[in-house]
């Protein structure tokens, strides 16, 4: 299938409203696609009702839309069943759910393995668990190019390991994690595997069956869908083994004044009214994304990222955080310019209508590893063009002139 970035932009109304904008902060949030926008509008105007409660036609329509969204998410992930899809408010909530429900089954001395590339959302919940349960945290280190250093994996994932929780791809370096040896090491230790897919799902359908992980978390807002919704996928037997995290309506079997029995997954983990319209819109976005020509789209974003890497490499005083080659990495490029703070660079870039993020990107241990406080990060989506990359490069040259 052919792909045209200019045609693809037509599916993103905000970009039409801001024709001069060079939006390169897609790792923070993606723009809302028309399929998601239309789904929200249709749902709220024709079938808005609470789910899992009503017997009237409107409520049945809302139920059907919500459960269809579960099937759409399952299809995007190649999950065995829609019952393996738990809707959450986002990746952070999904990881916190596992940190509580699975974490509370752990004992002092059990180990959780993370990497130094994790977003704070896949680090802080485990530090908090350490405070509650006395588990030990162990870390996969990073090589100089930002990739996970798996050379001593057998020393890090020990028989005491109960969970390995790692990112599918870094939100700073763009490096895609080599999950095969990590999953193998976890399996050998009898540990579960949680994969943080927050950066990955917007770059094409994910195959959780092939990954052989136990849990996979992602957010709607990075996948061109609304914010306030995300997914925790869990292998059926892994979810079934977990106690609930939040208690409330919708997650119960039977409640008496004295005790409660719990619903089966996924509802066991969806206490209270879920983000219904957001989930419906996420399902629509994922359905639309699944039908896109991903091979051509990845070739496009890889070409743009390579153009960016090449253009940056010739700027004086530039250092990269992350791999220089475009194999096994996403079109996310983080860098620093000597003598220019990331925030100052971003502020000058804004005057050029270039939207990029500067700072620690909620990955301070990674920043510590590279001895920097922060970095400028440009993150690309298929709707970006060479003009976006060139505007960034020109803006950086202007920043170097103005701020030195």
């Amino acid at each position: 299938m052919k792909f045209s970035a200019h045609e693809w932009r037509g599916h993103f109304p905000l970009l039409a409203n801001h024709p001069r904008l060079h939006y390169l902060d897609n790792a923070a949030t993606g723009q809302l696609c028309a399929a998601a926008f239309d789904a929200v509008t249709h749902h709220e105007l024709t079938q808005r009702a609470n789910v899992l409660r009503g017997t009237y036609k409107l409520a049945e329509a809302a139920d059907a839309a919500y459960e269809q969204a579960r099937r759409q998410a399952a299809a995007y992930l190649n999950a065995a069943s829609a019952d393996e899809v738990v809707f959450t408010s986002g990746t952070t909530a999904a990881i916190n759910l596992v940190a509580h429900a699975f974490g509370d089954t752990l004992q002092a001395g059990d180990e959780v393995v993370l990497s130094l590339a994790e977003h704070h959302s896949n680090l802080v919940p485990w530090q908090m668990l350490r405070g509650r349960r006395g588990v030990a945290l162990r870390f996969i280190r990073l090589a100089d190019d930002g990739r996970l250093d798996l050379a001593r994996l057998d020393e890090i994932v020990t028989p005491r390991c109960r969970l390995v929780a790692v990112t599918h791809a870094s939100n700073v370096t763009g490096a895609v994690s080599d999950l095969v040896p990590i999953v193998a090491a976890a399996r050998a230790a009898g540990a579960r595997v949680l994969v943080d897919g927050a950066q990955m799902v917007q770059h094409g359908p994910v195959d959780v069956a092939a990954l052989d992980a136990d849990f996979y978390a992602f957010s709607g807002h990075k996948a061109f869908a609304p914010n306030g919704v995300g997914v925790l996928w869990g292998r059926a037997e892994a979810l079934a083994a977990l106690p609930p995290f939040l208690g409330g309506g919708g997650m119960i079997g039977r409640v008496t004044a004295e005790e409660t029995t719990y619903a089966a997954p996924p509802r066991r983990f969806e206490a209270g009214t879920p983000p219904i319209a957001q989930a419906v819109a996420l399902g629509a976005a994922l359905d639309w994304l699944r039908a896109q020509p991903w091979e051509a789209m990845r070739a496009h974003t890889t070409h743009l990222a390579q153009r960016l890497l090449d253009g940056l490499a010739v700027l004086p005083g530039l250092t990269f955080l992350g791999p220089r080659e475009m194999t096994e990495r996403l079109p996310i490029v983080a860098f620093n310019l000597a003598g220019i703070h990331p925030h100052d660079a971003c502020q000058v870039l804004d005057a050029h209508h270039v939207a990029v993020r500067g700072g620690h990107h909620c990955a301070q241990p990674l920043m510590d590893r590279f001895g920097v406080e922060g970095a400028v990060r440009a993150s690309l989506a298929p709707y970006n063009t060479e003009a976006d990359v060139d505007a960034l490069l020109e803006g950086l040259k202007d920043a170097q002139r103005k701020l030195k």
Partner: protein
Amino acid sequence: MNEDLYQQAILDLAKSADGAGRLAAPDGTAQGDSPLCGDRVRMDVKLDGGRIAALAHEVKGCLLCRAAAAAIGRHAAGLDAAQAAELRAEVAALLSGADAAPAWPELKCFEPVRPHRNRHGCVLLPFDTLRDAIEKAAGR
């Protein structure tokens, strides 16, 4: 508006780095961290009769943060804890749009930061750290 942010006065103030360094035997040291960007300010103060007799700062931060620290390095001698807290409030008010003439003429160069709310913290971090350092020194 963005380009106004980096007028020559603010660049010169940042580059002056007045007061940069460490004190050999401070009465109080405070460290301020920005949760937004990871910037860090360390400030050492020596007091004489409850007032700043000497001050030095180390800044890992943006131009706005460095300029604010330099203004402090230039003018903070003689302040007591209450005045440092008052100064911090005055800078916050200036960023929020207050018209009152600032205590130090250099502070006027931060007026273009007003519409950029996410950058207010960059200017305020050294003033927060100054207030904390004096409080620590006074509480010894």
